[in-house]
């Protein structure tokens, strides 16, 4: 299938840096160009989607046509806190320890 007519706009290093930020991935400077190259190649291939006529088609997010399923509201026991905290990287008492949240997030 020809994809040449639908090639996406080139991805810049700034684009890659922006996506890495959205994805919460600290990509080192030297990796940016590698990712740029890989993503550009994949997007170039994916561009073939633009050549398919999709007019009037309802998007299909899921293979099963399921509606919401409601369960009975019955109290059940939870997993023990100790079991859940066993995997936590940092704990204080019965709580997860995290760095200061307010005033910290870079934007």
């Amino acid at each position, binding site marked *: 299938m020809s994809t040449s007519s639908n090639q996406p706009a080139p991805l810049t290093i700034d684009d890659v840096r922006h996506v890495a930020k959205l994805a919460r991935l600290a990509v080192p400077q030297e990796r940016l160009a590698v990712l740029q190259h890989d993503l550009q190649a*994949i997007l170039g291939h994916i561009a073939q*989607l633009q050549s398919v006529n999709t007019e009037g088609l309802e998007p299909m997010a899921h*293979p099963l046509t399921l509606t919401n399923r409601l369960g009975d509201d019955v109290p059940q026991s939870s997993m023990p806190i100790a079991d859940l905290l066993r995997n936590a990287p940092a704990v204080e008492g019965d709580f997860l320890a995290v760095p200061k*949240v307010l005033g910290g997030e870079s934007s």
Partner: protein
Amino acid sequence: MNIDLVQIRDDIRTRKTTARATVDQTLARIAHSNSQLNAFHEVFDDQARADADRVDREIAAGKSVGVLAGVPIAIKDNIVTRIGHTTCSSRILENYQSPFDATVIDRLTQAGAIIVGKTNLDEFAMGSSCEKCAWGVVRNPWDINRVPGGSSGGSAVAVAANLCAAALGSDTGGSIRQPASLCGVVGFKPTYGRISRYGLVAFGSSLDQIGPITHSVRDAALLYQCMAGDDPHDSTCAPRAVEDVVTTLEETPRTFRVGLPVQYRKGNSPSVDAAVARAVEFFKAMGATIVDVDLPLTDVGISTYYVIAPAEASSNLARFDGIRYGHRTKSKAAKDLFDLYAQSRAEGFGPEVQRRIMLGTYVLSAGYYDAYYRRALQIRRLIKQEFDAAFAKCDVILGPTSPTAAFSIGGMTDPLAMYMCDVYTVNTNIAGICGISLPAGFDDTSEKPLPVGIQLQAQAFAEPMLLKVARAYERAQGGRAYPSK
């Protein structure tokens, strides 16, 4: 027939052997070959022996035991188990111990199965070669310089090298069927929603499905039956009864139609085309009608998949943030919450996982959502409609599982070329239908004979018919072979 799970189960039950002897032999074979093959990340020797002794005591006491009593089963390491660790072959989950068992683990152990160990995969099930496993490459027992396929490569190798009676895999775009094909064993992906995903670490939630990798079709049918059915823990599990596929398995359907898509005939190895041609002859001899069907969007499937799967993955993998579980960076440079997330994730995820998270984030980002994600979902509907039209003309679709036999380790460095390995398998997941890969002979053009597989696909929830046709093929073809040594 060669030894399979059903045979082992029967031998234990009729006391021709014991569960303990079976488990001891399995553990001895793992101890002998795992350092070379790297199928297992973790093996539960002590617990497996204790479980086997319990089964033997129950049988000796004349108690009724489950349909899987005493059989050693290997579990892909992205299915959570209380025993041992669940790492997804990723550094980010290196020390993770699940506080609960997946529903499939509950169902298998309630039927008496013994969990013998956790098998390696491409990190987070993202790959087709098991070269992207944080715990080292997995090797194909037919030729240790070749890949086993992926992502359920460890499970496929464990079955192929007879290191377990059967194994579980997961299949998002071919991850059960392709490694089964490359390792010469049976790999079965049921219809989406047939088996609970509760406890399967999510990759592409609308595509993922757990399934068995086995020595025989009857093993696949039995494990499927043990695992299938609705689950209150998974609201995307199909709320419909599971038919008995085990007792009806040996009935060859009186008449059935085998569809051959023209799009499945280009770019394959001659050995793969020959395997499909042999299967056509087997089915003709059974009285099946062979019809041509048209699936023009076959090669668009890869593009569709590489929008939908990374999009869902980028969302699912957002949970690995270094806060509640998993790796947290020790870097002093992480001075705020954003840095902690970004640094922990960069240290914990391997390059392929990062590439897919980036791709998924990109196609979902403002300005690109409609052009990529929404459009891919529209094409997903078209692909589904194509299958519906094809299944109006046939009962099963026959073709290759993979275009080639196993490739050399390190031999495929371009990510896009690797993605193309799944051209015949991704659309099964995109449409949510079922498919099975069956051993179908060998490629003799390499130094060592390499297995090739055929794939049968059937409409959603048509497992009873798919398995009967697969079993009829297996009887005609003679079942799987074993690598020497």
